């Protein structure tokens, strides 16, 4: 796609001026509302005081999506899977769009059925991943709660989270007619053999070449090193945020974490992302020091496995919080912290091989069990809910065995809860609440 100076100005203004100004305006409106007649408090709320950082999170994400509306034609645009090494694209000035994050947002906004209907009419089965259906539906209809998504110049798909993204991005490539780069990360059974690591390294080198051609410039080693350092620091900061929940009471809920994960997914490798997590970490640490919990009365601590049920996060978290249950850790949010431990700015490509192949979903079940065990112990949980996610087979296969092993080895209560991460039509709220309630009653 040809790029123009005018479009670049629009993009920069949207990202640097309009986005922050809009956020400031929203903030001011909220403040004005607070200064008005005193509203009845919420003594009945089971949650602790809201996180101050949430406002900044909204500002950050609003600005990101607003700038994105003007990105095509201004800067190179890549649509990227959540597990893709975006650090390689950032120095080349790519604006990265994360269809998974966008689909999650659509689910929270409850527009998935409408978007999914559009692609089901075209022949996509409802059994397919709801993220994929949502995203493809948005592409086909042009409808999105974020106003507009920029058209991609490059599609970047990494198979370390699933192969669904591969099929999904093949369809996107056919639709947009732009290059698709597949970073194929062979699944790790036990240890990765040498030729697997060599393969991923060679692919990353091929990616650099392709991204440079699309961007029309070369990536300098020091630029790449700088971005990788920022990305590593960002993942560490995210890990520090999560680790605050080892305290009793945990200063936030695992469900809060699902929302605050957005910057490390979509803005990894940027200073804005790191600044945000410094702020969040400090606020959480402050809450820990004061004994402020994510819920008012934390009596039981739980682990959540798999993606969230985006469209019912609020309902589920309220149901649990009312009974003194808090998800203090989740394998999903933890995954974004774990990857960072392997990133090394001194060896951007070599360390990316390790970081991006050793993702929880790209490793065998014994590794998964180890992670769940470790989280359970580190966060002192009394129980676990394994979300059996119709839309995510790689995350869900094995959960029935995992449940038995976790319960037996750690002597904790474990529930397998069937739902879907995006499509409310694949989940019965009443049945889900019934299952969760019975599970909570078993702690009595």
């Amino acid at each position, binding site marked *: 796609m040809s790029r123009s100076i005018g479009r670049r100005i629009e993009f920069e203004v949207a990202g640097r001026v309009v986005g922050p100004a809009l956020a400031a305006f929203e903030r001011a409106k909220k403040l004005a509302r607070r200064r008005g007649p005193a509203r009845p408090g919420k003594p009945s709320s089971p949650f602790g005081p809201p996180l101050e950082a949430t406002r900044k999170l909204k500002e950050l994400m609003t600005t990101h999506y607003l700038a994105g509306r003007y990105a095509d034609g201004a800067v190179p645009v890549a649509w990227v899977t959540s597990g893709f090494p975006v650090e390689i694209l950032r120095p080349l000035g790519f604006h990265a769009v994360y269809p998974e994050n966008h689909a999650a947002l659509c689910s929270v906004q409850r527009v998935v059925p409408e978007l999914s209907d559009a692609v089901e009419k075209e022949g996509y089965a409802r059994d397919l991943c709801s993220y994929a259906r949502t995203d493809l539906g948005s592409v086909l209809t042009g409808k999105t709660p974020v106003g507009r998504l920029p058209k991609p110049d490059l599609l970047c798909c990494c198979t370390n989270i699933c192969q669904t993204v591969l099929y999904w991005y093949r369809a996107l490539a056919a639709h947009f007619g732009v290059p698709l780069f597949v970073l194929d990360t062979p699944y790790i059974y036990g240890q990765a053999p040498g030729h697997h690591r060599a393969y991923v390294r060679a692919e990353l080198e091929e990616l650099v070449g392709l991204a440079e051609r699309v961007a029309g410039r070369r990536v300098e080693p020091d630029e790449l090193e700088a971005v990788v350092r920022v990305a590593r620091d960002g993942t560490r900061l995210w890990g520090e945020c999560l680790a605050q929940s080892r305290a009793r009471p945990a200063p936030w809920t695992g469900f809060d974490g699902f929302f605050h994960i957005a910057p490390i997914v979509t803005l990894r490798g940027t200073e804005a992302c790191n600044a945000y997590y410094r702020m969040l970490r400090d606020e959480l640490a402050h809450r820990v020091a004061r004994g402020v919990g994510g819920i008012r009365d934390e009596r039981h601590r739980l682990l959540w496995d798999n993606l969230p049920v985006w469209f019912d996060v609020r309902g589920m978290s309220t149901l649990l919080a009312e009974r003194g249950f808090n998800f203090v850790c989740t394998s999903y949010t933890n995954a974004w912290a774990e990857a960072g431990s392997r990133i090394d700015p001194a060896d951007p490509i070599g360390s990316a091989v390790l970081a991006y192949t050793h993702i929880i979903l790209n490793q065998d079940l014994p590794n998964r069990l180890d992670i769940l065990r470790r989280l359970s112990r580190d966060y002192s949980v009394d129980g676990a809910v394994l979300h059996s996610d119709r839309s995510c087979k790689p995350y869900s*296969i094995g959960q029935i065995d995992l449940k038995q092993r976790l319960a037996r080895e750690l002597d904790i209560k474990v529930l397998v809860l069937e739902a879907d991460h995006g499509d409310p039509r694949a989940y019965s709220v009443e049945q889900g609440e019934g299952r969760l309630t019975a599970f909570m009653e078993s702690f009595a």
Partner: protein
Amino acid sequence: MRNAYIAKQRDEHGRKAVAVLPVHYPKELFTALDLLAVEMWGPPGAPVSADAGRVQAYVCAVVRNALAFLASGRADACEAVLFPHTCDSIQGLATLLTDFGGWSKPSFVFQHPRGSARPSSRAYYLGELRALADGLAGLAGRPLAPERLQEAIRLHRRIDAARAALLDGRRRLALDDVELYRLLRRGEWLWPEDHLAELEAARAKLGPDDVARGVPVMITGYVPEPGTLFEVLGDAGAFVVADDYAAVGRRVVRAPAALDLDDPFLALAELYWAAPPCPTRASDQVARMRYLAELCERSGAAGVIVHEQKFCEPELFDVAAVKKTFAGKGAKLLYLEGELETELSGQATTRLEAFVEMITGTARVA
């Protein structure tokens, strides 16, 4: 029948059997090492043991049934199992069965490269071939001799040529679809030389003139189960003139005409990328649609049947593109979805019959 054949192969030829999950794998390595590959497409029908409940009901029947079958000990005639890298579910099955119980004999994985052919993927594929060859050689108890692999490649090229001749010459073949598919699918477990002998015998039934009667249709999908589909199709007055099943047509490599066998591993890599496009190998979707359109046109099919298994992600993601491709050409298309049943449902039977009637009616009007 398979167990008796496996036992005979072991007793008479000393060949160990290896259970192989779908879809793509370098069978030549097995042949060269005197190992009998016995493919497991489920098997169809209800799961044979409660182990199927170890995976969710939204996982495809191929994986659920294979889990139940392997964990119940019914594949104990096999000395090992191979999990080719076909989809997330088979990948998950590989770790579930071998790490959490159900299969304690040796197991292998074969992770073919995904994405377009690049220098990295070619080098990786060679590495993966060599790693599998080493593993299988350990099972066979002898090293892989290059000349044996060259022989095996030649043998499988002859098998491919015979299968291609039968599929491409379908109109001139004096076999019905039930007989043809039964023959082709015996290749999933017969020793390759035995299979080739049967194929050559069938090839002798290829005449100079068209003998197949009825409406020619093209069929694409994962696996031709249940086999009764072909009975229904035949009774309705149609026959399969072009095949794109992952289990059948997509595994018949027609090119290259000449293959350099000096380095047999390089030859296997060349064959891998010469195979028809398949979503389980992540072939480019546009290229696949072009291939299907050409296959349909070349065969003279009057309609297209898309026959998929529920929850099969690689296949289902291409259905919209397949529909669009053929709608753009004004071709009639029927979408059928199954769950590895042993019999075609009454509903599916009616839909097939109606589809054939519709094509016949259209043809008459035309």
